[in-house]
C-alpha cells in the first residue's frame, strides 16, 4: 500500500557505548523525537551554533501522510533553515477554501487575498516528505547528531542537568543534557515518564481518513461539504497532496463501528459514492480517529521542555497541529541558543512557556469551536448549526458562522513580558508587538523579501526617506552580547547609509503593511515576532527593548 518509499536510516552505535560514558560530555541540548518539531528545532539550534543530539526510537519518517497542510508561517521558518523551497516545489500550493451544503457551494474564502509575499498561504505536503527533507537538511549542516533506534527509557532531572536512559539495539546507555526538549509526539514517552497529566477533552464522533492515489483534474482547493449527496448524514473534507494523493476525511458519527469502517471494501464503497463508477484509485494510508484537545498546564518543567504534540494536541481541522508545533520550535530555538551560550538568563525560557501555553490555549479554543460546529453536542446546538447551514445559502452573514475549521494563522504573543510597552503613538491597521512582521518584496540590488532579511537575528527595522541621515554609530550604541541587525527600509532605490543595510521597498508594500511613516521603527526578535514599535528612531529605547526581549 502506498507510493512513497520509506527511507531507512542507519543505526549508528552511540559514542557512549563505544568510547564509554565517562568520556562523553554533558550535551547542551538533547531533543527527543525526530518529527516535524524536533527536526525544525534541531536545525534552528545547529544553524545558531548550538550542537544538538536528537534521539528517535524509529529508523524512518512518519508512517502515513498525517499532517499535510504546511502553512505560510511554517514555510517562512523552514526557509530560514534552508529547506522551504524544496517543500514548495514538491507540495501542492493552495490558498482557497470552498464550503458546500449539500451540492451547493455557499462560501469561498481566500487565505492570502493579497500578493507580494514570499510564500503561499499553504502547501499540502505529506508529513513523510517534510520529515525526509528536514533530515536531509540536518545532514548538510554541522552540529546535528541524529540517533535513530534510540528509545528513551528513563528521565532523571537533576539541578544542573537531565540524565536520560536510552535503549538501543546494543543495549542501554545514559546521556546527560543541560536541556532536554521533548518533541516526541502525542504519546510522549518523556511526558509519561515524568507522570505529567495531559488533560483535556476527547470528542465522541469518529472520523475516517482515506488517503488515496488518483489522477484527477480537481483544482488545488480545500473543499468541505456538510451533508453532501455522496455522504448525506455527515461531513467530508477533501485536500490534494503531492504525487496525486488525495486526502478525504469522512465524518462517521458516534455510533460507527471502527473495525467495520476500516475494512478496505467499506472505504471503497464510500469513495465510489463520492467519485462515481469510473474512478480508479490506490490506497495510500487510512486512519480512524476521534477529535482530541489536550495540553500540559506548563511546557517548561525545570530543564525539561515540551513542544508540539507532546505539549498540546488539537483536532486536525484547521491545520493547527504540525504548524503550531513548528511555531513552538521557532519560539524556543533562539531563546535556548541565547541561554546555552550564556547571553541570556535561563529565566528567558519562562517566556516560551508563557507565549506558547497561550498559543496552545487559543488553538484549543478555536479547535473546540470547530469541533462543536462539525459535531454538535446537544440537540439545540445541532438545530442552530443546521440553521446556520440553511441560511448560508442566501445570507452572507451566516456564511461567516459556518465553521469547518478556522485555518491556522501565526498566534499573536499578546502580553509577553519580552515586549516593550508604553507610549505607543497613533497607528492604523498595523501589527502590534507579539505579531509576526508582515512579509513584502524588497530589493537590495536583487529581489529579496522581508521574511528573508528580517530573520534569525534581532533586527531594528526603520523606515526612512533619508538614509544618509541615520546615525552611523548605531552599531556601537546598540552593542552588547546580542547581535542586532540594522535595516533601513528606503522608498528610493540607491539610498545607502553607513552602519545600516538599505532595503528598497519599491512597491511601498512593507511600509503600507506596517503603517509606516518616515521614522517608524520596529524591533523584531529572531523568530520575526515584533518586540516593540515606535514612531521615531530612538536607539536608547531600542537597546532597552533588546535587553528586555532577551530576558536580561
Amino acid at each position, binding site marked *: 500500500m502506498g507510493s512513497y518509499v520509506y527511507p531507512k536510516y542507519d543505526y549508528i552505535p552511540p559514542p557512549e557505548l563505544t568510547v564509554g560514558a565517562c568520556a562523553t560530555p554533558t550535551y547542551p541540548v538533547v531533543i527527543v523525537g525526530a518529527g516535524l518539531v524536533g527536526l525544525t528545532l534541531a536545525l534552528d539550534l545547529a544553524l545558531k551554533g548550538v550542537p544538538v543530539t536528537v534521539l528517535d526510537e524509529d529508523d524512518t519518517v512518519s508512517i502515513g501522510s498525517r499532517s499535510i497542510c504546511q502553512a505560510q508561517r511554517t514555510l517562512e521558518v523552514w526557509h530560514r533553515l534552508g529547506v522551504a523551497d524544496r517543500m514548495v516545489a514538491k507540495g501542492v500550493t493552495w490558498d482557497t477554501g470552498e464550503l458546500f451544503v449539500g451540492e451547493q457551494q455557499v462560501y469561498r474564502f481566500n487565505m492570502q487575498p493579497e500578493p507580494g509575499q514570499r510564500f503561499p498561504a499553504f502547501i499540502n505536503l505529506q508529513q513523510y516528505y517534510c520529515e525526509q527533507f528536514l533530515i536531509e537538511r540536518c545532514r548538510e549542516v554541522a552540529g546535528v547528531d541524529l540517533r535513530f533506534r534510540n528509545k528513551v527509557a528513563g528521565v532523571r532531572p537533576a539541578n544542573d542537568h537531565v540524565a536520560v536512559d536510552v535503549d538501543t539495539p546494543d543495549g542501554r546507555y545514559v546521556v546527560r543534557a543541560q536541556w532536554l526538549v521533548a518533541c516526541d509526539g502525542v504519546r510522549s514517552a518523556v511526558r509519561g515518564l515524568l507522570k505529567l497529566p495531559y488533560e483535556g477533552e476527547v470528542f465522541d464522533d469518529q472520523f475516517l481518513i482515506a488517503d488515496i492515489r488518483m489522477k484527477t483534474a480537481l483544482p488545488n482547493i480545500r473543499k468541505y461539504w456538510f451533508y453532501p449527496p455522496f455522504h448525506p448524514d455527515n461531513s467530508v473534507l477533501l485536500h490534494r497532496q503531492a504525487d496525486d494523493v488525495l486526502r478525504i476525511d469522512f465524518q462517521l458519527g458516534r455510533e460507527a463501528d471502527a473495525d467495520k469502517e476500516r475494512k478496505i471494501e467499506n472505504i471503497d464503497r464510500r469513495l465510489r459514492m463520492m467519485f462515481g463508477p469510473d474512478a480508479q484509485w490506490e490506497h495510500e494510508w487510512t486512519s480512524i480517529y476521534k477529535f482530541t484537545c489536550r495540553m500540559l498546564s506548563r511546557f517548561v518543567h525545570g530543564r525539561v521542555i515540551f513542544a508540539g504534540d507532546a505539549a498540546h494536541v488539537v483536532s486536525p481541522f484547521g491545520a493547527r497541529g504540525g504548524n503550531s508545533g513548528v511555531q513552538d520550535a521557532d519560539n524556543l530555538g533562539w531563546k535556548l541558543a541565547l541561554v546555552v551560550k550564556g547571553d541570556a538568563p535561563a529565566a528567558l525560557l519562562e517566556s516560551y512557556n508563557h507565549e506558547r501555553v497561550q498559543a496552545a490555549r487559543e488553538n484549543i479554543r478555536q479547535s473546540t469551536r470547530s469541533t462543536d460546529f462539525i459535531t454538535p453536542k446537544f440537540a439545540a446546538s445541532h*438545530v442552530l448549526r443546521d440553521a446556520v447551514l440553511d441560511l448560508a445559502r442566501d445570507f452572507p452573514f451566516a456564511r461567516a458562522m459556518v465553521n469547518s475549521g478556522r485555518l491556522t494563522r501565526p498566534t499573536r504573543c499578546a502580553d509577553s513580558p519580552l515586549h516593550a510597552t508604553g507610549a505607543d503613538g497613533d497607528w492604523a491597521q498595523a501589527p502590534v508587538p507579539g505579531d509576526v512582521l508582515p512579509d513584502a518584496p524588497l530589493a537590495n540590488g536583487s529581489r529579496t523579501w522581508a521574511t528573508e532579511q528580517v530573520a534569525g537575528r534581532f533586527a531594528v527595522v526603520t523606515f526612512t526617506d533619508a538614509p544618509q541621515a541615520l546615525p552611523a554609530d548605531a552599531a556601537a550604541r546598540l552593542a552588547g552580547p546580542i547581535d542586532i541587525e540594522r535595516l533601513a527600509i528606503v522608498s528610493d532605490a540607491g539610498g545607502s547609509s553607513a552602519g545600516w543595510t538599505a532595503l528598497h521597498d519599491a512597491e511601498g508594500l512593507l511600509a503600507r503593511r506596517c503603517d509606516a511613516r518616515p521614522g517608524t521603527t520596529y524591533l523584531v526578535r529572531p523568530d520575526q515576532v515584533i518586540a516593540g514599535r515606535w514612531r521615531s528612531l530612538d536607539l536608547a529605547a531600542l537597546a532597552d527593548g533588546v535587553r528586555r526581549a532577551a530576558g536580561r
Partner: protein
Amino acid sequence: MALRRDLNLARPDDVYNLIVDAHRGLDEAQCRAFDARLILLLANQVGDEAAIREAIDAARSFSSPRESGERKGPMPQAWEGEG
C-alpha cells in the same frame, strides 16, 4: 445597558402576532428549526454583541412564574386597566 427594555416597535401587537402566526402548522422540530433561523437573522440585524449578550442573560435568568410554579393561590382581586 445595551439592551433596550422600553418599547421599540410601533405596532407591538402586529409584530407579536406575526411571530406567533409564523409557527402555525409547524411540528415541534420544525418550530425549533424556525426559531433557530429567526434568532440568527435577528442577532445579525441587532449587530451589537453587548446587546445580544444582555438579551441572552435576560432570557436565561428570567424567572417565569409559570416555570417556577409560583402562580398558585386565589385569583387576583383587582383587574388593572379594565376596572
